[in-house]
């Protein structure tokens, strides 16, 4: 174990973090948007579309992300050339993003759909009877009630997305793993254990940070707010009782 070496390569490895973060952010935002569209289509149950969507989701569920990455990287140029489009210089980063977007579109819809179905029918009816438009209904009634159900699953999905991003070095993107291979090639294969231990620690830190972020979001959902309010109220009640008791005592004295 050479801790000095680990500290030495730490800045080199972390300098490639922006490219991973770019892939993570783009594919999480666009993937979430795609999954919202897919969830909406699945809930609507359109006749010919829904078997296709089910097939898409079961396909994404059963193939490894690494294989999907290769399929997109080698397959998309061929697919586009069938449509007479020249996409031979599709960059590796774009294919990685496309892979993660279509993968997360399916994966997140498996989280969002149960969350939507968990909202009671009465809530929809109440909103309708009060005359809300469907957009306002979703914004004010459905999403606040979906959030506490969906957020733990979404947090896990972010962690898995970070894990999956570590595979993009296999199609030649220089992210942390790619940089590690370069460093190992320069040092003639010495200190491999230290390099990968450093990478593991970096990923651990990133995942802990994103866990914190999701916890912060969870604290803003209405369920947690009610809990906090109750806890605060009972606390202030106790404080109030304490003070009044003291006052009564001092009065008696």
């Amino acid at each position, binding site marked *: 174990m050479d801790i000095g070496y680990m500290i030495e390569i730490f800045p080199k490895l972390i300098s490639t973090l922006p490219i991973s973060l770019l892939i993570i952010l783009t594919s999480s935002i666009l993937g979430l948007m795609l999954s919202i569209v897919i969830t909406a289509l699945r809930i609507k149950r359109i006749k010919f579309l829904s078997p296709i969507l089910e097939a898409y989701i079961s396909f994404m569920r*059963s193939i490894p992300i690494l294989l999907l990455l290769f399929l997109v990287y080698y397959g998309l140029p061929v697919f586009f050339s*069938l449509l007479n489009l020249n996409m031979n210089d599709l960059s590796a980063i774009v294919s990685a993003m496309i892979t993660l977007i279509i993968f997360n579109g399916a994966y997140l819809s498996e989280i969002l759909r149960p969350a939507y179905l968990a909202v009671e029918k009465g809530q929809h009816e109440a909103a309708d009877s009060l005359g809300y438009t469907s957009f306002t209904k979703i914004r004010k009634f459905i999403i606040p009630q979906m959030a506490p159900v969906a957020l733990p699953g979404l947090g896990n999905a972010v962690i898995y997305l970070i894990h999956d991003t570590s*595979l993009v070095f296999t199609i030649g993107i220089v992210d942390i*793993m790619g940089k590690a291979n370069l460093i190992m090639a320069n040092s003639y294969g010495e200190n491999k254990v230290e390099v990968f231990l450093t990478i*593991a620690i970096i990923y651990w830190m990133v*995942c*802990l940070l994103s866990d914190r972020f999701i916890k912060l979001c969870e604290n803003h959902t209405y369920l947690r707010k009610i809990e906090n309010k109750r806890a605060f109220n009972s606390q202030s009640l106790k404080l109030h009782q304490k003070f009044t008791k003291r006052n009564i005592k001092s009065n008696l004295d």
Partner: protein
Amino acid sequence: MFDFKVLLESIIEIATVVPKTLVLAIFILLLSLLMGAIIALIQQYKVPVFSQIIKVLQSFLRGTPNVVLLYLMYYALPGILTFFAGILRIEFDANSLNPIVTVILTFSISYSVFQSEIIRGSILSIEKGQIEAAQSLGFSFWQTFRRVIIPQALVAAFPDILNSLLVIIKALSLAYLISVVDILGQAKMVGALSYRYLEAFVGAALIYWLIGVILTFISNRFELKLRHGFH
């Protein structure tokens, strides 16, 4: 551009490694279930020192991608094993370590934490009344465990266990990085031989999809049966 004859040929060639992959995955599943049970017991009884170590391990395994873990084990395991062999004074040649052993150990450790959650959940899902009823009938602890808790917990955990089998089969696709040939590794080799990567990858995807559909079908059937009861 896309040749269906090549696709068919590559599917047949890739299918030859499916049994090996399945056996490897089931072996990893059983090993990780065993380790998961031990972890669940340690957490349930809050064994000092061990439960703290497991907490850190849980956080570490949750935060580290499988690729990084696999490479870490691949390079660190010979050293670790040589160290322990030195303590126990056993002759051990670190270079003779088969990469399959590394794959099995890495994924068993990595998934044991998840299995422990499944096991804990399934045991907690059993009603207390069941255990009390068994006790009132004069069952010993071991009898209660074997005749009341295990059958119900297994039934409750079965869909989750099948799901984690699928997850392990998918995770095994990383094994080709350390030269263990599974479905994806075979697809890469077939593609490299014929310079037709795309057909080989599509074939591999179809095989994975078939496995996934079969496993989902079994677990759905089982859940339906579970809901209607085994009578």
